[in-house]
């Protein structure tokens, strides 16, 4: 049984253990937490169970291969793995090339010296967002969740929720304002 209390710092340490010494036990622990969640995310995006599992596998393989590129000053562990899963899904929808790797990958594009306090800030970012998400009005959390989980472009969210596109957009804006306020000076 996997733990349901995410421990971002622990996960970051596991990724670094993989990067530093190809630590298979660290990888197994990371796999047990994330692989079933990545699979769940792929299922919600409309993938078949077989494809969802394959994409979860590819995502975790990339985590293993690119662990050295994980930079806790740039992203928390969950955020980093989310972006890998997202790029895997984008790739899977393409036939030939790997366009997700065309998108800027912050981990691969160092942009100058990282301030030491940013490492702390990024580790904290996920927990602040977690708290702020829990505080969002249901309707605002709903549009964000739909956008991330269900592969819905805004026009479809509009149809499904039965509210005008302008309302979808303003709910998203309000939600993001709250989340950003929760991040304070972090971003």
């Amino acid at each position, binding site marked *: 049984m*996997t733990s349901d209390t*995410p421990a971002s710092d622990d996960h970051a340490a596991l990724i670094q253990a993989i990067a530093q010494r190809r630590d*298979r036990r660290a990888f197994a622990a990371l*796999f*047990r937490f*994330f*692989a*079933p*969640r*990545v*699979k769940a995310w792929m*299922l*919600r995006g409309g993938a078949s169970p077989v494809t969802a*599992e394959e994409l*979860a*596998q590819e995502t975790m*393989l*990339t985590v293993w*291969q690119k662990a050295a590129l994980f930079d806790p000053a*740039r*992203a*928390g*562990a*969950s*955020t980093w*793995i*989310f*972006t890998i899963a*997202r*790029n895997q899904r*984008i790739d899977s929808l*393409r036939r030939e090339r*790997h*366009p997700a*790797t*065309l*998108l*800027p990958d*912050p981990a691969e594009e160092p*942009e100058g010296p990282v301030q030491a306090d940013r490492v702390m800030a990024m580790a904290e*970012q*996920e927990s602040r*967002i*977690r708290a702020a*998400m829990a505080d969002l009005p249901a309707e605002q959390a709903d549009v*964000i*969740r739909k*956008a*991330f*989980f269900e592969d819905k*472009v*805004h026009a479809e969210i509009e149809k499904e929720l039965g509210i005008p596109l302008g309302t*979808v*957009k303003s709910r*998203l*804006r309000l939600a*993001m304002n709250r*989340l*950003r306020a929760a991040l304070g000076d972090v*971003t």
Partner: protein
Amino acid sequence: MIAHHPSETTLLAYAAGTLPEALAIVAATHIGGCHLCRHRLEALEAVGGVLLDSLPPAALSDDALDRLLARADEAAPAPPPVLNAGLPPPLDRVPLGRWWPIGLGARWRPLQAEGAAWGGLVLVQPGRALPRHGHDGLELTCVLKGAFSDGSGRYGPGDLSEPQDDHDLPPVAELGEPCLCVIASEGMRLRGLLGWGQRMIGL
């Protein structure tokens, strides 16, 4: 100095990975040169990370981890090759077609992308109008060189135009140097000269 950025909904779709490829390429071109949007994107991706954490797990097959560890020595796939050295990332790695004349003082070079949007480079001589489609979907334009102005402001290198309403003042390239942009749209067809050019080349 970048003054025009993508909307929150567009950036969210980009972060979630649901923006059609051609539009994502234009958005990425802007984000690659914009620190503000880089930070906005990081915050949105962190939301994605938090949501991923909160999902009820879906069980994998029993041997999933073992099968994966058997592949532990596989190398990561190589990134796609640089095809267009003069263009900023990610455009430098995107396959492009040839240049097509699309009327007086404008040329068009389609980019190869899958999904429900199309896009390409457009090069417009000073003082000439850029094409603009009908407002039946999201359209993004990122300036690479030169500048243009429309009813909503002036757009220089790095700026991203995302028309929000139905004002229809055509964007016009500034006097001085030609204006090079990358444009993508999920609209049906371009109007005017580019629309004509599109039909000629069967896009």
